[in-house]
């Protein structure tokens, strides 16, 4: 028997498939991963501390930069928390606009996640670019509404920054109709491809119990067979008015997570259609003081962001800026299961697993 040693391989922070600046110290026995130690903080911008020195409204752009793919849902989570803290009402039309934007963001995120996963598996940029092309159409809608494509900074406490432009609704309908078609197209490209099945099925199985114990949320949890979705479990905004279904799969592997995202895109499109149909006229912004001074107290509110349960915890001392600003970032918590998933697998599997749990470093490090 030859005497062998494990080697330590440093994956990241500069590595093509760590989705940003994530670093993993791998202990490898040949090509097999024995242990993994995640190290993050390379994108730490001190957001939570920074927020304590800025007014409530000034913190809104900060949230854009957490999960930079889904600015709208971050805005939504923060706005809901501040509204809960200050006891603000939101006009009906603004609620509908928020739902439309949040669901469009979910579509954007899932497209990027699927595209990046397939790209990491080695399908050289084609599926990725198909996804990004569709994402552009949604970003066009964002741009016409709030002037920005990624860092939207669109929501305000008690409403949204601006009403929808006139051409938004017809164009949004067009985009939704097109997306139904393109998601089918994307699914036809690779979903039943034998190589994809060989690479994704049975890889990175996240058991139901482990997922619950580690408080994993979002598509990653639903792919492990737990029908938990904040939109259903604790409806916020006006989600109780829409008809939508929550998909789950029992397998819990990378392929299940891939399928869940495709299914959720279609559900989101369904919600958007309903919201566009019932969009009421009226104000989009309630009367809110310029400089918000919420009463002394604290508030926690959560939403189903595309990546999982995104929560904000705010403490007010009655001043113009939060006393404490804490974020429950879904991807940070989803990432905690990573070492358990990869043990005994190989580097290519690790890449597939990271792609399928869909991390974004802006949110993990804040």
């Amino acid at each position, binding site marked *: 028997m030859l005497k062998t040693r494990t080697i330590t391989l440093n994956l990241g922070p500069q590595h093509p498939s760590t989705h940003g600046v994530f670093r993993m110290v791998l202990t490898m026995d040949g090509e097999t991963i024995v242990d993994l130690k995640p190290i993050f903080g390379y994108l730490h911008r001190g957001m939570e501390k920074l927020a304590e020195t800025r007014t409530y409204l000034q913190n809104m752009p900060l949230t854009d930069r957490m999960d930079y793919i889904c600015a709208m849902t971050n805005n939504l989570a923060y706005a809901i928390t501040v509204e809960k803290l200050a006891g603000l009402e939101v006009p009906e039309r603004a609620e509908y606009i928020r739902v439309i934007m949040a669901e469009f963001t979910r579509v954007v995120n899932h497209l990027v996640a699927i595209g990046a996963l397939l790209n990491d598996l080695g399908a050289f940029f084609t599926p990725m670019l198909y996804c990004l092309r569709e994402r552009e159409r949604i970003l066009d809608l964002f741009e016409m509404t709030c002037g920005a494509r990624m860092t939207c900074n669109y929501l305000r406490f008690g409403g949204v920054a601006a009403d929808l432009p006139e051409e938004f609704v017809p164009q949004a309908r067009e985009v939704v109709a097109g997306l139904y078609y393109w998601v089918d197209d994307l699914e036809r490209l690779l979903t039943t491809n034998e190589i994809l099945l060989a690479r994704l099925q049975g890889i990175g199985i996240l058991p139901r119990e482990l997922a619950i114990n580690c408080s994993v949320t979002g598509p990653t949890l639903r792919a492990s067979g737990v029908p938990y979705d904040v939109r259903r479990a604790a409806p916020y905004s006006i989600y109780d008015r829409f008809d939508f*279904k929550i998909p789950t799969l029992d397998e819990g592997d990378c392929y299940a997570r891939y399928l869940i995202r495709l299914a959720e895109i279609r559900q989101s499109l369904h919600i958007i259609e309903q919201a566009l149909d019932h969009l009421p006229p009226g104000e989009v912004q309630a009367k809110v003081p310029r400089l918000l001074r919420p009463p002394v107290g604290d508030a926690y509110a959560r939403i189903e962001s595309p990546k999982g349960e995104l929560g904000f915890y705010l403490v007010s001392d009655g001043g113009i800026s939060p006393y404490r600003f804490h974020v429950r970032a879904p991807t940070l918590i989803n990432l905690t299961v990573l070492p358990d998933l990869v043990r005994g697998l190989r580097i290519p599997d690790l890449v597939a697993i990271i792609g399928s749990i869909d991390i974004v470093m802006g949110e993990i490090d804040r």
Partner: protein
Amino acid sequence: MAFVSDLFVNSWNWIAVQLARFLPPWAAELVMMFAGVVVLIAFLLFMVMLLTLLERKVVARIADRIGPNRVGPFGILQPLADTLKLIIKENTEPAQADHWVFRLAPAVAVTAALMPYAVIPLGRGMVGTDINVGVLYVVSISSLTVIAILMAGWGGCNKYSLLGGMRAVAQMFSFEVPLALCLASVVLLTGSLSLVSITEAQRELWLVLVQPVGFLLYLLCGIAEANRSPFDIPEAESELVAGYHTEYSGVRFAFFFMAEYINMFTVSAMATIMFLGGWRGPFVDQLPVLSVVYFLLKVHFLVFLMFWFRATFPRLRIDQLLSLSWKVLLPIALANLMLTALADKVAHRAGLSRMASAGLLLGSNLVLAGVAIATLYLVYERRRAPSLSRRYEIHWH
């Protein structure tokens, strides 16, 4: 007209005649030999440039993009710009690199990639030298690439390079075997190891028509040999950064790049010669200059297939790749060789006509394909049986 009808060969002979006027015969021969080498290398470098541009354009179109279009009309000068960039870039070398191994590796890679062209006929009468063990020569030379890759993987003193190099060696060794077996069945049918005679033997019938299984196997193994997607595991960029050439920059990187594209061209050229009739095509006997056109068209068709695979397929994992080679491709290639030998023998004994024996060979090949597919289906279905709980049914709540 007679001169133009076989332009390349005639100009070559004309130059040789002119040289012989004022040089002693041995000197003229020597000059012509060097000229041949220079022409071949120049041709291949031109092909590499063309292929890089083609690849970017094709992959871009598949991905619904336009591709390079800034340098020159339709971006056709892009390869020149890329070459210039690579030449003027700094050659970095890691402080702990194994100096000589690190510096030698790119040269070895390119040399090994260029050498097969000594025997590959690019058109009628256009071959460096027609040795009678051409197939053997090409197969053995192309495995030299492994050494270059291992040198690069080791010399860079980088764990990613090392992993890439190790993977490359494992992969290329395992695919060499079924690849050689596929070529062996062609050799068996044509009765020659010389690439020129193999081309000649396909005057009536391309071998792909009697050996479809062999052709597909060869293509698969060839793509794996050339490290192209979906078998581009040694340089899997999303896993191993750039694999064995992670630490290379500038011209040295360009050498690896060139070697990869030349290898791709070699694989396609070999497939063309062995299965698609080489430079043969309609009217090639009347107008021999067409032979180059036919050859390049066939090669580029195969190259296009590789681009297509690269643009759409995910890549396999290294262990899946190796088991594909040893457990699937190798048995099929072996069975193919035995069945071909048997069918050929039967055809000879029975004294069948050429067409009838070709039919018999094709029939046996198709039976083999059917049996192989059925076996694979049964085996893989059974392997999936324990995991039948994984049905991937979406439950709606």
